[in-house]
């Protein structure tokens, strides 16, 4: 019985998250109509505050997109190398080193993006603002590479070697075996790793909080600052949002949406890997 109670802590935590988010988001929606919430005007601290979430969703989409553009090709090809090309010895050295990258706190990546990557990018793109979406997007992508590589590699590794032999026996090169046999066979695991990476990028906070700034404009220009949902929550709580104001409750509305987004991604990932499991 004692153990049952402790085990239920995790369930209570989940319920607690949902409850606090929903309860305070509810208070927010009592005051802010949905038409305002789904607008492009976000100015929580002005005299006549407006709580449009679209600039935040926009910022989140752009950072996530850039991160995925970096993480997917590099992560996937790294997984192909580790699983299909590298010798067992190389794999045993490289894989843990890569996972080391995943163990570095995101605040460190944030510092790296802001004080190293942004200045370099500014030399290439003179119009780049000190706070922009491009740099944190790229760094976030780098941070996610090990996740994509590791999960995809697991998926590719679990493809039975008999299947590879079939293709080698027909005179296929390693590259052909990789692209035409292993990847198709591991596609569910690979897709799941992408979806989990998206979920991770959406929820990533410190990199964007530091390097992409707090502009609440609705823009598509990645050389400019944009705010993500996560960065909004951080900015607002570390500032002075008094409890009970609409601004304070807006955190929970944004948080609820963020929670929903990542949850949906996780469910999709689980669905993909369950549905296509054990085809061979």
């Amino acid at each position, binding site marked *: 019985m004692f*153990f049952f109670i402790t085990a239920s802590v995790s369930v209570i935590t989940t319920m607690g998250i949902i409850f606090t988010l929903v309860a305070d988001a509810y208070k927010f929606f009592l005051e802010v109509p949905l038409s305002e919430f789904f607008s492009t005007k976000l100015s929580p601290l002005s005299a006549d505050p407006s709580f449009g979430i679209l600039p935040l969703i926009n910022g989140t989409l752009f950072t996530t997109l850039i991160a995925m553009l970096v993480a997917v090709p590099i992560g996937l090809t790294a997984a192909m190398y580790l699983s299909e090309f590298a010798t067992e010895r190389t794999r045993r050295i490289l894989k843990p080193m890569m996972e080391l*990258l995943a163990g570095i706190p995101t605040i460190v990546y944030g510092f790296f993006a802001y004080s190293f990557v942004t200045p370099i990018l500014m030399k290439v793109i003179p119009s780049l603002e000190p706070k922009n979406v491009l740099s944190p997007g790229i760094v976030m992508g780098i941070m996610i590479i090990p996740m994509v590589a590791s999960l995809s590699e697991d998926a590719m590794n679990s493809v039975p070697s008999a299947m590879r032999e079939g293709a080698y026996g027909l005179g296929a090169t390693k590259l052909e075996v990789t692209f035409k046999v292993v990847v198709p066979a591991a596609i569910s695991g690979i897709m799941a790793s992408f979806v989990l990476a998206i979920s991770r990028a959406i929820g990533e906070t*410190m990199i964007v909080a530091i390097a992409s700034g707090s502009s609440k404009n609705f823009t598509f220009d990645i050389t400019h600052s944009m705010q993500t949902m996560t960065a909004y929550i951080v900015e607002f709580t570390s500032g002075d949002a008094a409890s009970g104001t609409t601004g304070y409750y807006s955190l929970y509305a944004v948080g609820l949406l963020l929670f929903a987004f990542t949850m949906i991604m996780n469910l999709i990932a689980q669905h993909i890997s369950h549905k296509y499991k054990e085809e061979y």
Partner: protein
Amino acid sequence: MQQAEVDMQTRDMKSKEDKSMENNKKGHVEKYVQIDSNRTKRRILLNVLAERLFSLSTLFALIVLGILLYRVGEQGIGWINLHFLTGRLSINPDKAGIYGAIIGTVGLMVIVIPVTLGLGVATAIYLEEYATKGKIQAFIKVNISNLASVPSVIFGLLGLTVFGRLLNLGSSILAGGLTLSLLVLPIVVVSSQEAIKAVPGFLKEASYGMGADKWTTIRKVVLPVALPGILTGAILAISRAIGETAPLVVLGIPTLILKVPTSLMDDFTALPIQIYYWTLDTVLTPEYANLAAATIIVLLVVLFLLNALAIFIRNKYQRSY
């Protein structure tokens, strides 16, 4: 055997008919798969190029890691001295020290370690040893894996509402520690579960065979054998907690805390938070970037030591049955 012989005879007859048919057909089918040595060369070249490119992808991440460490090291190492480690926070970059942040981080761990270990291991024991395979167990497992992927900033909101406001703990070490505990709980649960699962059945059976009850068996057999695995997981969870920033920021920790915390109810700052605020403020005071880099070095050294410890434990106590 006899059956097979009969089969063989009938088959011989059949195959003779078929063969004449096949032979006819063979005449029509031209050789379409031609071995074209230029094409093979191209395919092999492509394969070699791909291998190079893919190995570069793998190295890319490691190169970035190298640049990151070098960059941070170069910028921060000159700022690390005894005063920096033992001095108090100050607005003046030359006088600032991270003693308070170190104590804050230690304080957080004083909460996180017992709470996550207690809850995590107990949950794992329940799931692996007590829970009947069924809906409740499946539900808890799904729940834990989902919890593991909730963004940390959401945990911050939970902590802010429940610990900060509801329990009125404010932005104290206790509130921060409890928030982080919930955040890393899934890591401890999953790794403990795996460690417990890996305990061979015959050890448990031997214990039951001698008349021990379930709890005794868990205490005397399962836990000691699973301990290295549990500890490894716990250390990884702790390193995650040490580096976490977002949930603490959301709790509303004040920007500048000059006082070194003396109790778990005090407001505090911690290493990652200090990095965050200093990085944000580099616009005003450029030297803060160096302080942030120096703090990152301290943080990474701590994480490195923890990881080394985890690897040490795993290697030393790895048993084979």
